[in-house]
C-alpha cells in the first residue's frame, strides 16, 4: 500500500490545516472557502494518496483523542438486541455501531419485509426473532422520528446469538441464522476490534461472541 501516515501536532476545532488546493479534508477536517480546517481536537495526520488514485493531493485527517459516542448512520453495521416482536416488525436496542459500542440508547426497527432477501411475504416475525436475541443488521435509513430502520436481508446478517425457551443458548442454526461459520470469522475480527476499543469484557455480547468462538 502506498498509504503513508505522518503524525503532526495537536490541533483544535477551527485550526487551519492547509490550503484546499494542496490537501484534501479527511476525517475530522472540513473545507471552507479554499482552506482546510480541523473540526475536532486531536492529532493531525497526513495520508498520502494511493498511486492509482486520480486525486494526488494528500489527505489531512484529525485523529480525535475523544470522539463523541457512535451514532448510527445509513449503511453502518450494527449489533442490536431484540426487545419486542410484533407480527409485522421487531423492535431492537442498538448496542454497537460498527466496532464501537454506543454510549446512549438508540432504537431500531426491523420490518417484516427487511428480514430476508427472498420470500419476504412469508416471513413470520415470531419465528425469526425472540426478545433477547442478538442481531447483526445494517442500517437501511434514519427511519422515522422513533426508530432507525434496520435490515437483516443479507447473508452475513441475522441473529448471531439467541436463547432457547428453556434458557439454553442455541447451538443449532435456525433458518435465519445463516452462514454460521462465516460469522465466526467475522466474530473473531469483531473481538479483536472490540478489545482494541476498550470494549467491556463484562458485556454480554462480547461473552456470547467469545462463547461462539471457543466452541467452534
Amino acid at each position, binding site marked *: 500500500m502506498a498509504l503513508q*501516515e505522518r503524525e503532526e501536532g*495537536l490541533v*483544535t*476545532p*477551527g*485550526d*487551519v490545516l492547509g490550503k484546499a488546493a494542496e490537501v484534501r479534508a479527511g476525517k*475530522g477536517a*472540513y473545507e*471552507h472557502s479554499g482552506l482546510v*480546517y480541523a*473540526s*475536532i*481536537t*486531536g*492529532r493531525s495526520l497526513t495520508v498520502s494518496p494511493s498511486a492509482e488514485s486520480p486525486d494526488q493531493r494528500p489527505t489531512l485527517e484529525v*485523529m*480525535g*483523542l*475523544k*470522539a*463523541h*459516542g457512535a*451514532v448510527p*448512520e445509513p449503511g453502518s453495521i450494527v449489533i442490536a438486541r431484540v426487545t419486542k416482536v410484533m407480527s409485522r416488525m421487531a423492535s431492537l436496542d442498538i448496542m454497537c455501531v460498527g466496532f464501537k459500542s454506543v*454510549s*446512549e*440508547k*438508540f*432504537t431500531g426497527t426491523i420490518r417484516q419485509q427487511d428480514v430476508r432477501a427472498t420470500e419476504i411475504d412469508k416471513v413470520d416475525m415470531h419465528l425469526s426473532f425472540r426478545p433477547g436475541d442478538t442481531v447483526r443488521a445494517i442500517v437501511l435509513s*434514519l427511519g*422515522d*422520528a*422513533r426508530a*432507525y430502520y434496520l435490515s437483516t436481508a443479507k447473508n452475513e446478517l441475522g441473529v448471531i446469538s439467541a436463547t432457547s425457551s428453556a434458557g439454553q443458548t442455541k447451538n443449532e442454526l435456525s433458518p435465519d441464522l445463516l452462514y454460521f461459520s462465516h460469522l465466526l470469522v467475522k466474530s473473531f475480527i469483531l473481538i*479483536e476490534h472490540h478489545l*482494541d476499543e476498550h470494549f467491556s469484557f463484562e458485556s454480554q455480547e462480547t461473552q456470547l461472541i467469545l462463547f461462539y468462538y471457543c466452541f467452534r
Partner: protein
Amino acid sequence: MTGKGSATPATYSPSPTSRKGKPPAYKDGDLNWARPDGRGFQQCRPAYFRTGAVNAASGSAYVEIGNTKVIVSVFGPRESKKAMKYSDIGRLNCNVSYTSFSTPVRGQQLDHKEYSSMLHKALEGAIILESFPKTTVDVFALVLESGGSDLPIVISCASLALADAGIMMYDLVASVSVYSLGVNLVIDPISEEESYQDGSLLISYMPSRKEVTQLTVTGEWSTDKINEAMNICLDACGKLGEIMRMCLKEAASVSSEVNLGRPGGRLKGLQGA
C-alpha cells in the same frame, strides 16, 4: 476545645464591615472614573478554563472569569425525544440555569429565560450538525456565581465543552461583551457596572473562520461607536479563542500521555501486520 483561643469567637457574628460599600458610582460626563475592580476600560478579567469538569457527561468545561463561574456539560449525541419531529440533521438543545446562590441575594437572579435561546443561536452556526443525523446534543450550562458578563462566558464555556465532547465543529466560539457607559466603552463588564450601562453589545465569534455567529446590541449607538465596539470585541474574542485552544491542547496532551499514544496505536500495529 471551646474558648481555647480568645481570638476565635465561639459563635459566629457577622463582621460589621460588611460589603456595603458601594462601588465608585459612575457619573455622567466624568472621564476619569475608575472601574470598581481597578481594571482599564479595555482590559479583560483573567480567564481560567478547564475541560473535563463533569465525569458523567460526554464533554464538559469549567470557566472562571473574575467572579463569574460557569460549568457546562454536554450530553449525547443521543436519540431525540419522541415528541420531536424527524430531522435529517442533528439538533442542538441548550439550557442555561442559575444556582440559587449565584447572586448576592438568594433567588434574586434576573429573568434569564432568553439566555437558553441565545446560547443556542450563538452555537448552532459553529457545529457541524450533519455529523450526527437525527440525534440531539444537549448542552446544559449552570452559572455557579454570577459576576457579570454571564452570557458571553456561558457561550465560550459551552463551545469548549462541545470541543471536549468531540462534537464536530467548524470552529470554537469565543464571546465577549462591551458596555457603553457615557463616552467610554468598557469590555468584559462586571455586575456592578451593569446597572449604569447605556448600551451593551455582545459578540460571539469564530476566531479562526473570522465569522460572527451572534450579535446583539441594546441602547443607542452611533455607527462609529458600534464600529469601535465591534473591533474591541473581535480583538478580545481572538485572544480568548487562543486561551481556549491552549486549554484544549493542554488537556489533549495530558490525556494522550496517559493513554500511551492512543488512540489507534494498536490499530495501526494491526494494519501493519
